């Protein structure tokens, strides 16, 4: 791709390492502290963790004459009761049964039992009043539950971790074969850095996360792999170019990084744009905005991390790896020459 600019990334290595290290260290620290004193390294959502719920089951509803969808008045009653009690749900689910329906509001485990119990009482009282006033609801009952989810994302996380480990190892080995050891080290660094940064940022932001965290962790590594293929291909090509061979290691790396900068920023930016568009659109229809926030935030963090890690951080650090690698290579060549003489 065309050179967009003339960024001197190599000279910024120390600054970039400091920025990344601070974010990763902060994320790991916050995550570790929360692991012991709060609800886990990440703020797990109901895919992984327990939750409290208020469920209203209703049967044989006939709001004859009122013209209302049976769900609507019940939902109105519930929402008013939760508002009065000062609690907010993060997911609402409703469904039909053969004889009626069921609506469930989920709350995090930190939601006050007293407040939820008060809301349940208010809902039941209000529904009773509705039955008397409209004679419609034959049976309806609100109850408070605390659920312990046994499995949802646990297995997905462990399998994703194995996949990421295999993918990173494969990436490294493939680059040793097809590129050079220094480039393979650079690719390995990019994978590890981007993954660590993604984990740290999610641990820092404390948004309730579902099993999507695993999916976007794998996508982070995948985009990094694609990005490093473009980056190190430019380095490989430029190293072979007779005119560019004269350049210093830093200049050559900066040139290669600038040539691949467009791809390595635009590709994650396209996916980030998709996240933002989805967030805007789904916010209109979502029953609970928090439900859409988590996957969108996961994706945004993943794509921003990939853009920064692959296009900016990796070339800066790679230039120094290459410097050391070239020096070692020169040393071994000199040694071989002396030995052959």
């Amino acid at each position, binding site marked *: 791709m065309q050179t967009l600019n003339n960024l001197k990334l190599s000279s910024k290595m120390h600054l970039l390492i400091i920025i990344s290290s601070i974010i990763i260290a902060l994320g790991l620290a916050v995550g570790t502290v929360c692991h012991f004193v709060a609800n886990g390294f990440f703020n797990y959502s109901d895919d992984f963790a327990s939750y409290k719920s208020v469920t209203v089951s209703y049967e044989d509803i006939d709001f004859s004459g009122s013209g209302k969808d049976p769900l609507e008045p019940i939902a109105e009653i519930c929402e008013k009761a939760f508002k009065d009690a000062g609690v907010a749900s993060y997911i609402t689910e409703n469904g039909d049964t053969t004889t009626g329906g069921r609506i469930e509001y989920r709350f995090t485990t930190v939601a006050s039992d007293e407040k939820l119990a008060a809301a349940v009482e208010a809902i039941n009282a209000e529904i009773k009043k509705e039955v008397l006033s409209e004679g419609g609801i034959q049976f309806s009952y609100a109850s408070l539950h*605390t659920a312990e989810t046994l499995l949802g994302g646990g297995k997905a996380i462990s399998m994703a971790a194995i996949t990421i480990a295999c993918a990173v190892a494969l990436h490294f080995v493939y680059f040793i074969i097809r590129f050079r050891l220094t480039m393979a080290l650079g690719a390995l660094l990019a994978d590890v850095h981007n993954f660590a940064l993604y984990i740290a940022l999610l641990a820092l932001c404390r948004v309730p996360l579902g099993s999507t965290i695993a999916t976007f962790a794998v996508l982070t590594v995948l985009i990094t792999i694609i990005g490093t293929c473009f980056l190190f291909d430019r380095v490989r090509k430029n190293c072979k170019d007779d005119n560019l061979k004269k350049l210093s290691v830093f200049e050559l790396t900066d040139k290669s990084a600038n040539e691949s900068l467009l791809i390595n920023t635009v590709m994650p930016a396209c996916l980030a744009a998709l996240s933002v568009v989805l967030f805007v659109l789904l916010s*209109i229809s979502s029953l609970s905005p928090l439900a859409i926030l988590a996957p969108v935030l996961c994706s945004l963090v993943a794509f921003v991390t990939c853009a920064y890690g692959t296009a900016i951080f990796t070339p800066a650090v790679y230039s120094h790896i290459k410097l050391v690698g070239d020096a070692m290579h020169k040393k071994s060549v000199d040694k071989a020459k002396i030995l052959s003489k």
Partner: protein
Amino acid sequence: MGKVKSAIITALLLAAILVLSLFATISCDVPGTNNVSRYNSFISSINLGSDLTGEAYALLYPEGVISVSDYNLVANDEGSEDREEYIEKYVLREGVYVEKDKLENEDEFVASIAEDAKVISKRFGDKGYSKYSVSVENECKFVIRVAVPTNFSYAAYKDYDSGSRSTKLTEISNTVQVLTINGIMSLRDNTEYDNSNSLININDDFADFFSSVSYNQFAGQHAVQMNLTDEGFEKINKVLTSASEGTAYIFAGEQSLGLTIELGTALEAKTMYFTPSASSASDFSIVLSSIIGGGVITNSYNSDSAGSGTVLIASTSAFGDYAAIYLLVAVLLIIIAQIVLSVIKYKTLGWVNAIITVIYALIIVTSLMLIGTQLTIAGAFTAVLGLALLTFSNFYVFEAVRQQTKLGRVISASIKTGYKNRLFTILDLHIVVLVVSILMALICVGELAACGLILFIATIASYTLYWFTKFMWYVISSLAKDKVAFCGYSREVFENANAE
């Protein structure tokens, strides 16, 4: 290539794309059927994940526990014969009615339900759903809630395809019933449990006869494969040859699974294959494998004696009723943005890239529909990542060709050299992504495995279409007078040389 030949190929391709696009996107009532039959487009026939079409969940009440509605149906019916018995027998406990007898050993009862939930969770985990949950309600520890994706297509979700909707709900309902079967394995002489006798020695556990049970699918055949241990092989042959004729039935708990063995003939191999229906084979193998591994459910759930069948509730997606439509709109916006960008940057060549993008989208939609992979929001991101891979591979080679034209080469030579220069870069890129996608599909479970499969298709499509772009470039550029302008390039060196 001649202009006529080029025009014919281009017209045929565009017509094919147009027709396929119509079939892929437009759903309508079939004319002449009085609006009875409906054609559902490819896109509305893709199976969608729980984030787009919600989940189906069932509440599992153990024997001795019934829902408030079940209780009220009888207790509020003054004409019911069972009314007095119900009022006497049950007591309300946090949203459910529990038999008083069960509450005498409440802790033990609750602990058994919690253990059952773990076994049920393991069984649903083996089913490979893109997302599922099994939960026990803490304050009302008598009920287990099982939630799985409905696997509805958009047509089924919106009830345009009610047949498919009810089929899928029935499948889930059957799966819930099979995976919650309680009790141990046995081999019996009759299909009715009450009228049957166990053929296995009272001191033996039939489950110990087997080392493993797995599900096999090959060439449209679905089979439960049961592998016997050496000891199990000897013992089962002794049982089979001790009778002269008849049929032995494999039971899980009190339910016959319909897996039969002929009596009177010894088995020749230590592996037995059974071929139940496609939908049951996987469920049976999971249950039998679970029992062999020690995962036995102790309570009977939603049994008739409790007066409550398994009611499946299909809930709406937490992202709203139109989540799938919004996802489609978002993806379309990205595709349009990509097309606009490529047209601005590469003029008419950008339209070649646009055609390739449309073909890519059609390949993904058709593959998802045919394979039946579940599409979730993460899956859509994966498909867009595949599109990015294709687009940037094309842009990367377009730039290589641009460099060649700047050196003064004619466009055909530039294309040839550009593609040659980028051959290994693009190959490396696709090989790495392809291997990672295979890893995802094989190692991961649920949503990630589905993403792996989508990425696999996307990578193959991307690489194939990368070369197809080159072919289309040749074909369509044959119609253009100025091939350099066609690509939005300029031949600076050549022009400078002319000037000199």
